[in-house]
């Protein structure tokens, strides 16, 4: 800034703040600052609330998995033939080693070692997501008893999780437990088909040991069932059924060794061969579980990108819901492939619509109000400056060519006030978010910057128009200097 410009700026400020005009000018400036400040604060506040809701819904794991009902093995086969390709095309993938039967989730518990984890990264993410949604991970860690054993055997706890029955009374809990035991007996009996001679005795003995001694573990009190999937009553390690399947298909071990391969320990754990606990070969890549002919059951579909942030041309991010997928599962639902927690899909769509509407209305409202204020108040300030300083400015122009500088100064003053308000609120919000660990989005700077630059650009010709008696082709400095 040159010394002359600085001097001119100081003189202009002194003239605006002289005694005769000081109060009126200060009132105008304060009104500008307060109105723009409240408006910007209101926008930032709503932006923050919408942003938190947006993050909550986009990160909601229950919205990344949908359970689809299969009525029988034949209908499941037809479903795979008719719809699987389309679902994959829409970004959905069947989760192996998990299904819901009789409101109970059966899911395989993988050992903590990476080698036994699913090789497909998509299925690994899906299993991790289910573990997370149902708060299983700590249970899985406890499921495998950590004690030094040989390389061929493993000990697991004979437990299942009571997912949503924490607050139920003892009689109901006992009733649910007995029902689960009968379901497990049914499933074990389905697996047992085609087992004959003395192996059936070994099979029944192992089945009885597992099912009679299986123990209910309530959900960790720190965890609440996910509200969108809270209908699931119990979570049962699919590993128990895998043990039975592996026993059924083990034709190489002699009957004595087979009877000893699975033993029930006094501490409530099951000691078995690692091979018996692993996923049976026939189930490795097969989601139908033909031996466990339990229907209807709900098969999980993992859709990691059903919700994604999406940029709008109004310079904000809202939520993009994968409409094709949602429409398709609605269509499946109406065709009898009912969704487990069907209302979840409608809740999801409603939430996305509401949040997107809120984001849009907040931004449109902000753009309109901020641009209105960002143009109207600077216009008033320029008019104020012209009306109260025209005598002085005309006198100055008689001697010096300071037209460009004067126009720049009276453009700059309101623009700096806007910058002060918006920059201050933005900086305060970002600091508050960083120190409060609120995970605020820096995207908020974009609408603020756009309205700031738009108002500054729109105000430029308006400011020039305010001083048009000095910038037209009709000179009358003499009259203006006399206050006419």
């Amino acid at each position, binding site marked *: 800034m040159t010394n002359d410009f600085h001097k001119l700026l100081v003189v202009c400020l002194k003239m605006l703040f002289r005694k005769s005009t000081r109060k009126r000018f200060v009132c105008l400036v304060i009104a500008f600052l307060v109105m723009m400040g409240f408006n910007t604060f209101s926008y930032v506040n709503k932006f923050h609330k919408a942003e938190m809701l947006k993050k909550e819904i986009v990160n909601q794991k229950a919205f990344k998995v949908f359970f689809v009902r299969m009525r029988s093995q034949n209908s499941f086969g037809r479903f795979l033939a008719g719809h699987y390709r389309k679902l994959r095309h829409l970004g959905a993938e069947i989760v192996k080693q998990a299904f819901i039967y009789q409101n109970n989730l059966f899911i395989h518990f993988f050992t903590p070692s990476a080698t036994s984890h699913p090789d497909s990264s998509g299925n690994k993410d899906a299993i991790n997501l289910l573990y997370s949604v149902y708060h299983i991970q700590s249970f899985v860690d406890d499921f495998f008893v950590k004690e030094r054993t040989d390389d061929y055997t493993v000990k697991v706890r004979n437990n299942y999780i009571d997912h949503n029955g924490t607050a139920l009374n003892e009689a109901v809990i006992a009733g649910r437990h007995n029902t689960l035991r009968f379901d497990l007996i049914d499933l074990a009996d389905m697996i047992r088909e085609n087992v004959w001679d003395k192996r059936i005795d070994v099979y029944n003995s192992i089945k009885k040991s597992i099912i009679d001694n299986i123990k209910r573990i309530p959900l960790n009190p720190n965890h609440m069932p996910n509200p969108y999937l809270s209908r699931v009553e119990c979570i049962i390690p699919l590993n128990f059924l895998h043990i039975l399947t592996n026993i059924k298909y083990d034709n190489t071990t002699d009957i004595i060794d087979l009877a000893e391969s699975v033993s029930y320990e006094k501490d409530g754990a099951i000691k078995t061969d690692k091979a018996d606990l692993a996923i049976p070969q026939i189930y490795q890549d097969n989601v139908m579980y033909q031996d466990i002919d339990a229907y209807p059951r709900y098969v999980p579909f993992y859709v990691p990108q059903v919700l994604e942030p999406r940029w709008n041309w109004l310079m904000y991010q809202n939520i993009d819901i994968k409409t094709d997928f949602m429409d398709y599962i609605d269509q499946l639902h109406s065709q009898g492939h009912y969704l487990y927690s069907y209302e979840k899909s409608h809740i999801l769509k409603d939430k996305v619509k509401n949040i997107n509407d809120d984001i849009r209305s907040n931004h449109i409202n902000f753009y309109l109000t901020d641009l209105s204020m960002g143009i109207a108040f600077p216009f008033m300030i320029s008019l104020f400056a012209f009306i109260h300083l025209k005598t002085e400015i005309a006198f100055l122009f008689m*001697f*010096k060519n*300071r037209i460009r500088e004067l126009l720049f100064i009276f453009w700059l003053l309101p623009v700096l006030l806007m910058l002060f308000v918006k920059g201050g609120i933005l900086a305060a919000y970002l600091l508050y978010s960083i120190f409060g660990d609120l995970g605020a989005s820096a995207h908020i700077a974009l609408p603020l910057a756009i309205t700031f630059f738009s108002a500054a650009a729109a105000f430029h010709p308006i400011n020039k128009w305010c001083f048009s008696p000095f910038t037209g082709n*009709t000179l009358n*400095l003499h009259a203006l200097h006399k206050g006419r």
Partner: protein
Amino acid sequence: MSKADRFEVTFPLILTQDDSFSITFTLESGDTLEFKQGAYYLYGDNGSGKTTLLNMLALTIGNIGGASGPDKGTIKFNDETYNAKGFNYIRAAEIREKSFCIFPQKAFFLPVSTRDNYMVLNGSDRQKAAAFSAHEYPDLLSGGQQQKVLMDIVLDAKKPVWFLDEPLSNLDAERRHYFWMTLQRAYRKDLATVFFIDHWIGKKIKDDKNFKHLNTLLVVTENRQKNSPTNINARHIEIFENNDPQDFFGRQIQQVQKEMSATSFLKKEPGV
């Protein structure tokens, strides 16, 4: 700075404002008037348009940049025509800053200190700026003191054309002496052309053999307001020219010095 600056005015010169008021300057003899080096004195009644003409020459009143066509007269300064296309308010301001000094009828200042006034309105001499007070506000001075301070601030010897609109009103002998001295010093430097209006010095000018009558302007003002009868007035402005005004300045200085001596004599003998 060259002393070859010149104005050329083509008549009739018409100034219109808001389509309701117009003032027409017509030359008594000929249709072109030229102002070159020297002092020009404009003599006329109140309201005859002297100040308007001065302001039109000084680019503070008028239609520029083609806003009025050549049929309404033209003013040229150093071959730049004010109402030619392409001539705009920026160019006008540049010419005013570079070449013109306008001394207004009434003393006026920006509402800041005298030093800030000098820096913003003139600022050509940093050393001279230091002589102005950074704390004194000119509005608090008396009328005569304000005239003197205003002279110091706006009269710039580096500018070749001065427009002096009744500069001597409110001035006592001491300050009139200061004024003529300032004018004389400036004329020895870069000042080339002086226009001035003064009601009290008219007789002296007419009697001064070095001032010759250049021409007479017929000024017709026409005021057409709605719901009022049209008001037309005709006045005259006489223009006198002195191409070598140094003697005139010297005589004015001597005369004021005499007045000052007489005044000081009177002051020494109270009761007279």
